[in-house]
């Protein structure tokens, strides 16, 4: 018998099914820039939590000539949180700090080719962690010159 659902696109409906696309699954399975920077390497550090779902993220940056030279993260959370954190680090890596600052959660979601509607809040976590790390870098007073300790 013909299956009427065969070849149908997964609809983005608010039901219980959480469908992740290949790109999201790839970033969940092989997250980029996972790990920690040593204290000597770190110019900025951010730790943020999402009170709505308990997810948590830590993010480290190393800045050279106002550019994000190195970035690393660790994340406790759902697949959406892991994948969006990973994609965020890819977007920020190598960018001038000023540019990295303006990365939005929508940019992360778009780069991943979309995530389920109810997982969109996850993508905020990475953006918030990056902004916290940049604020930390700024507060260390090395902004403008680049740190060369």
């Amino acid at each position, binding site marked *: 018998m013909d299956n009427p659902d065969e070849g149908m696109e997964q609809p983005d409906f608010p039901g219980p099914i959480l469908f*992740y696309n290949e790109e999201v699954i790839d970033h969940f399975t092989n997250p980029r820039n996972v790990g920690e920077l040593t204290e000597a390497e770190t110019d900025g550090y951010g730790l943020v939590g999402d009170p709505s779902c308990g997810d948590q993220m830590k993010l480290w940056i190393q800045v050279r000539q106002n550019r994000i030279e190195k970035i690393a993260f*660790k994340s*406790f959370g*759902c697949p959406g*949180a892991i994948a969006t954190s990973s994609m965020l680090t890819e977007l920020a890596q190598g960018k001038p700090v000023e540019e990295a600052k303006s990365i939005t959660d929508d940019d992360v979601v778009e780069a991943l080719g979309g995530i389920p509607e*109810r997982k969109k809040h996850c993508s905020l976590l990475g953006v918030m962690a990056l902004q916290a790390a940049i604020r930390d870098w700024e507060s260390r007073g090395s902004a403008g010159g680049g740190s060369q300790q």
Partner: protein
Amino acid sequence: MIYLDHNATTPLDRRVLDAMTPYLTEQWGNSSSPYRFGNQARIALENARARVAACIGAAADEIVFCASGTEADNLAVRGVAAALRERGNHIVTSSVEHHAVLHTCRALEAEGYRVTYLPVDRDGLVDIEELERNLTPGTILVSVMHANNETGVLQPVGEIARIARERGIVFHSDAVQTAGKLPGMLCHTGADLLSFSAHKFYGPKGVGALYVRRGTPLLARITGGPHEHGLRAGTENVPGIVGLAAALALAVESAGTEAPGSARLRDRFESLVLQTIPGARINGNGAPRVANTSNLSFDAVDGESIVLGLDLSGICISTGSACSTGDPEPSHVLLAMGLSPKEAQGSVRVSLGRHTVAAEIDAAASALERTVARLRAISSL
């Protein structure tokens, strides 16, 4: 695919499909029609009713068919609440019920009923003394599930039934996770009302039943025709009901041999996990449990990430109730058992079935070990 989520649903047994097929094809009559063709459907319906009754130790007129376990729960809780509104407005239930009962009780609170949600201990058991303390002259219903869908923990329903009966309070138990799984007749629990659902025991989806002990005050929640002794209007789903009866008969027949085999595999799985994954914990293992269910917690990882990790290896498990997948709130059952939100977030449910074999258990335990290790390496906790 290795399927270890039988508390969510089970495959339709081929023999059940064969029993249903005539009523999906040639015998499509309406069981309420006044001619012989309709009467054939009526006979199938009433035979199914008698068969279900015999499986649980009830009389045929004590079985009401409906569309799901959730609907059976709704009929029981709302139906008793409506029937006894004049006598009282207090309902006692547990904090670990399925949402079918829990959310129904919350809805009744909005209608002016008072509901007590009994706490449970670390193993998920309701405290009998706490139950007794909370019963008042205005208490009209106690609803406590037989086995929990997330942990498999069996509540002391016999004891609860005795306490309720002594005080003339109606007792309902959601038996969706025990029907066809436990040896022995469900009616021997002493409950006045028992809900169950065909697709949990290798029957079709979209059909459930409520056992209603004779004399139990109950009002229909779906009104219309006089179907199902006036307790549930709507043309009966004859193929589904025939399937429910056939599936329950098969499950009850084999429960005595399947349950011990399932318990052995479950124990093997749990000891593998405890041996290979540091810090793994089994929730509810200090209480009696149905043989097929295992609920596990792992530090510093998220349950949904474990589920996806195993899914990518072709293994189906879940974070808890399929009915709340994607809900960012951690399991209300595990929170009620005293787990912290973080511990509850790192929990998964594995539920075995009739066809589960040792090789599948071993593969799942090994995939779980790899996945948890990988996620812990990523984890910020």
